[in-house]
């Protein structure tokens, strides 16, 4: 009884205190970019966030980073929380955790009178020009098919066009997983000597990938000549299993992401290749588009489809360019709003074709 009383009072006090100390800047909505990310603890995300932050800071704005842990429901709740108190003219750059939710997110922000650029995920059927077209400015992704293809061809080259490979897939219904598989299949079509021995789901994670690789090694033994890890974490998991078997460097491994760990292994020769997107650039362009439209520098009506739904360039990292890649240091000046706005689509790799999402 006493306990209940005390805690009720205590909590009330705490809430009132918390509520009164949090000051909400209801000033210029154009200066605050809401950046929805998967999490903040991986190279890709920190680089992307860095790019967006440079753009916003160059115009005296801020970035509010919101981590959604790859959970679309949490994303939905967070967008709801931001738009609920009123959000006329808010700007968003969001990673829709599942393509199934992209439509809901952009429509929601459209209803609230905001502007959004999306990263990576959209359903095949919807595009920025046909769904909440005034709010959804652009969708910026990386070409997963190309990533799968280029890594596949690199593998083909390394194996001299002959041999069996295994594939560690990402979470199956994620677009990048499907795209990278499509790309790999395209590579196999051009390199018929390369065959897929087995495919399993490593769920983008290192430890499960390691367990699967270990199982494969016992099942197929030295039949395996190459491993496709659909992201870098799984490539590292496969590498760890190969190291255990003393096969590191003998079996070729590819990843995708361009994380520094993997690039270091590429330098040392244990991993063959990985694909790195221009991650900082993606964040910067997404932020610049959202801000530019918001302040009227860019007119949505003037944009073409290829300018609203496009791939960002990416680079294949192999032993040849690994050292150079590690040494690069992005220059903040190149990521200011003005610098990006000068040629927003300079590093576009073209419109996203139909059938890849």
């Amino acid at each position, binding site marked *: 009884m006493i306990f209940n009383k005390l805690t009720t009072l205590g909590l009330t006090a705490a809430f009132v205190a918390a509520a009164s100390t949090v000051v909400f800047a209801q000033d210029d909505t154009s200066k605050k970019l809401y950046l929805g*990310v998967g999490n*903040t603890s991986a190279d890709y995300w920190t680089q992307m966030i860095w790019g967006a932050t440079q753009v916003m800071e160059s115009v005296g704005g801020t970035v509010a980073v919101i981590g959604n842990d790859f959970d679309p*429901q949490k994303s939905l709740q967070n967008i709801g929380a931001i738009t609920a108190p009123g959000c006329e003219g808010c700007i968003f750059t969001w990673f829709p955790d*599942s393509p199934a939710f992209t439509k*809901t997110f952009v429509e929601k922000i459209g209803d609230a009178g905001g502007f959004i650029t999306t990263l990576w995920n959209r359903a095949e059927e919807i595009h920025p020009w046909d769904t909440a077209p005034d709010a959804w400015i652009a969708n910026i992704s990386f070409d997963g098919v190309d990533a799968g293809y280029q890594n596949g061809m690199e593998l083909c080259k390394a194996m001299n066009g002959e041999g069996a490979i295994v594939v560690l897939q990402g979470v199956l*219904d994620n677009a990048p997983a499907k795209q990278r598989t499509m790309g790999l299949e395209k590579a196999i079509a051009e390199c018929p000597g390369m065959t897929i021995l087995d495919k399993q789901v490593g769920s983008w994670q290192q430890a499960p990938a390691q367990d699967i690789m270990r199982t494969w090694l016992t099942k197929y033994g030295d039949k395996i000549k190459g491993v496709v890890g659909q992201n870098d974490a799984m490539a590292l998991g496969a590498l760890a299993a190969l190291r255990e078997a003393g096969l590191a460097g003998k079996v070729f491994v590819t990843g995708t992401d361009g994380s520094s760990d993997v690039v270091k292994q590429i330098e040392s020769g244990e991993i063959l290749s990985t694909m790195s997107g221009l991650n900082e650039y993606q964040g910067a362009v997404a932020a610049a588009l959202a801000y530019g439209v918001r302040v009227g520098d860019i007119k949505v009506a003037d944009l073409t489809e290829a300018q609203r739904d496009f791939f960002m360039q990416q680079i294949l990292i192999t032993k040849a360019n690994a050292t150079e890649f590690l040494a690069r240091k992005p220059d903040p000046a190149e990521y200011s709003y003005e610098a990006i706005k000068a040629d927003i689509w300079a590093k576009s790799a073209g419109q996203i074709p139909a059938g890849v999402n």
Partner: protein
Amino acid sequence: MTKDTILMFLRRNGALVVLAIILTAVSTAAPGILRWRAINSLLQDNAPLLIMIVGATLPILLGCLDLSIAAMASLAAVMAAMLSPALGSASAYVVVAGAAMIGGLQGWMIGRLQVPSFVISLGALGIFKGIGMYLTAADMVGIAPGISVYETLGSRSFGISNAFILVLIVAWLFTLMLKLSNLGRNIYAFGANEIAVYISGVRRDMVRAFAFAASSGCAALGGVMMISQTMFASATVANSLLLPALVGVVVGGTAISGGVGGVLSSLIGGLIAILIRVGVTISGLPPESQDVAFGITILIAVALTTDRAKIGLVK
């Protein structure tokens, strides 16, 4: 009112009090949240979660747990989308009815196989997920456009989200059922002492089957509501809803051990959890500390809403 009656009121209605406190706190911080449009939009977004919370309450009242609800919602979304071109509106009804039957089967199996609900529904979770993956080949399925059920669920009447109206109707029906029907009486008694209820001549397998049918049916309804917003289904579309649903039920004051609580309390619990999430997001805390803030606030909310007088041993 004397001091004692006030305290009694607080204890009985802990969930309502907490809801009021949090609503006050959040709206002080962001007054815009009290606008009808904002509330409505929050309710619409969270209708799938709320309907799952409503359904999940019934097994918990028995002292059981249904871990398969989120997987069932995803599977239902996938099935509804796949059936929508052929069946039109009927696809939603077929899916919800089918889910209720499967849920009923789950509940009945718990008694027949005498395997705890935790295990049966954990297994069912895997099975539903696998079937969903297999049916869609891990791809997304778009819903056929122009089907009235989905359009209705995605829109509003009298300015209120239809999906949320449906949540209220279902919650109200369940509340009436729990209060006025023999089945409702049996559900509460079952949660208090399963064996005594069985020896009193209650068909416990049927009671359990009903509770699980209700939770599966509501989960499927949640899946249908979800795709009426997203227009796309995938085999994992609702998978992340399991824990929030359980959190909502518990925050509402329904005891995990069974026999105590109710559907309306759970609904209030769900709203509390949603508002806490809103509060944490707009609080301006860095993203890294939001989870910590959410976790701790939820714990405090549960501590306040649990009526300890009615719970014996705390496990």
